[in-house]
């Protein structure tokens, strides 16, 4: 078992002033449990605002959970200290390649920062060697080291971001909508790169997306998230053949371009879960 998430909760609050009591605004992640086994890629799908990214950020400890535990490799949740191995073992690639790289840093500095966090003392020459080899493995040329992020295309930037994550020698790579902002052709290239890297680096992916086609190609298991909860987990083939939850059915239908009786579905659903629309894309379960 690489990663076990138990009953994880994260709420966002509203109005946390000096004198005003804060109250729950959004239950972004509301009691999620999920297991990830080594070598078994998991796809996490769901609509915008369903809590996928929040879950990813909870796993890498960008947020502190309200409740619940993240057990890494059977060793309990990892602490915030950077020296901790587990922190390195889980790396994340973000959605927007245009802003996930510091625009003021050259690629060399971006990669050096990751290298310096590895905890090993290595000579400058070896550093360059490692950076070049990791760049080569993501399919970028050597000259990329001296360039700034704005000199790259979106796909190339995402490759740099992946290279940065790879330098930390992670075992689990969380790809938070990592290909969503790229065009279809580049998406495909990145997915192929990911498949290749998986062999070279023995990685496990937690692939967060709303693109079912890619998940189908890449992941063995799929978890469907809806309004802060995981509503369905299944093997990929099983899920595509026989979706159980109404939301999954709808998601698949939309992806496969089937017609569904929209109004009937919504009514049915609202009745079932007593959802209250609070505007925007956020819903609150009450």
């Amino acid at each position: 078992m690489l990663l076990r998430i138990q009953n994880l909760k994260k709420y966002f609050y509203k109005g946390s002033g000096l004198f005003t009591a804060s109250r729950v605004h959004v239950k972004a992640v509301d009691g999620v449990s999920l297991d990830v086994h080594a070598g078994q890629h998991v796809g996490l799908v769901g609509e915008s605002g369903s809590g996928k990214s929040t879950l990813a950020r909870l796993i890498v400890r960008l947020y502190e959970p309200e409740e619940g535990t993240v057990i890494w490799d059977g060793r309990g949740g990892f602490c915030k200290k950077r020296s901790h191995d587990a922190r390195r073992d889980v790396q994340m690639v973000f959605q927007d390649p245009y802003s996930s790289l510091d625009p003021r840093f050259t690629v060399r500095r971006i990669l050096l920062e990751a290298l310096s966090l590895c905890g090993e003392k290595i000579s400058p020459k070896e550093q360059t060697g490692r950076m070049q080899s990791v760049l080569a493995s993501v399919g970028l040329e050597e000259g990329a080291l001296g360039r700034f992020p704005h000199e790259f295309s979106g796909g190339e930037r995402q490759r740099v971001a992946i290279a940065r994550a790879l330098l930390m020698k992670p075992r689990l790579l969380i790809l938070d909508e990592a290909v969503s902002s790229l065009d279809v052709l580049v998406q495909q290239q990145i997915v192929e790169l990911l498949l290749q890297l998986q062999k070279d680096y023995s990685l496990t992916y937690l692939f967060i997306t709303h693109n079912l086609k890619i998940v189908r190609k890449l992941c063995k298991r799929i978890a469907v998230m809806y309004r802060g909860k995981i509503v369905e987990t299944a093997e990929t083939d099983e899920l595509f053949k026989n979706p159980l939850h109404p939301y999954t059915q709808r998601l698949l239908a939309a992806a496969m371009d089937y017609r569904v009786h929209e109004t009937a579905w919504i009514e049915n659903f609202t009745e079932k879960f007593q959802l209250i629309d609070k505007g925007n894309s956020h819903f609150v379960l009450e």
Partner: protein
Amino acid sequence: MKDYHKSEFQIALGSFLRNRAAVVCLWVLGLLYAGAIFADFLAPYSYQNEDRDYSYCEPTRVHVRDEEGRWQRPFVYGMTVSFDQYHKRVYQEDRARKYPVEFFVQGDEYRPLGLLSSKLRLFGVAPEGRIHVLGADSRGRDLFSRILYGGRISLSIGLLGVAISFSIGLLVGGIAGYYGGRVDNILMRVCEMFMMVPGFYLLLALRSVVPANFNSMQVYISIVVILSFIGWAGLARIIRGMCLSLREREFVLAAKSMGVSDLGIIVKHVLPHTISYSIIAVMLSIPGYILAESALSLIGLGIQDPYASWGNLLSEAMGILQIQFAPWILIPGLFILVTVMCFNVIGDCLRDVLDPKIKKL
């Protein structure tokens, strides 16, 4: 195409240098600072060299032709003083005494960096005569020399004050903005306490706390500290606002998820993105420090005689009689004006260059 490999900063520098007004101002400031740094060499007299026979002596005229109209190397005449019926001093050139202006002469002693001892000065006249390019003050001290020496204090106080207050402001703003929540709340309330009191009164109140028996160096340092104590709050608030939005940017999250320490993120990833604003704010706030020091010295609470600062020099020009009969003692004000204007022009240009989103109103 050539811009492609340049960093943001290099591009900005390029367009800054294309702005002629800003470059001129940069040169003027460079001259002023050079004048202050090399005051010992450039000034014909030390700041406390006085000759009471030359009290309020008008600017010395440098002649190149003698009374018979023959061309000569530049020289000045000695001055004789007499009093008119209102007991006003009237200076007249004494044609019998001629003192050629000499270069690289031995003048008052000074110790650059407190180590060497030197007497070499750029220009001067024989000790029996005096040359006052910009006139003399009430005690017959050379105004030009005192302006150069005063520049040391007036020009450095802005830089030092800004350096201290911006370090505090950046750090406090960075911490408040990055952590948010309660930390932010407390730090911002502290800032507001400083901003609540009108600056000049706070300045006076803090100045009154400084012991009266401080020597001039201690007074100088305490003024710098006081000035920077007042200035940091406004910057901290703005930096905090910028950091609040920056901390949600993905490259900050990426660094955080990799395990970069909080301080490392603030210093390496968050604050550098506020730099374009900070540089502008620095440039536009230096004049405030210079003016505040001048105001303090003008009312006699700043640098004390015999040490010179531009505000201190101006304090002589508080009486209508002095201005009427010795208008040249207003010249230090001109230096303040030029300096403040230069900083403002450069700051404005930097804003255009670094922050294209803010358009001039």
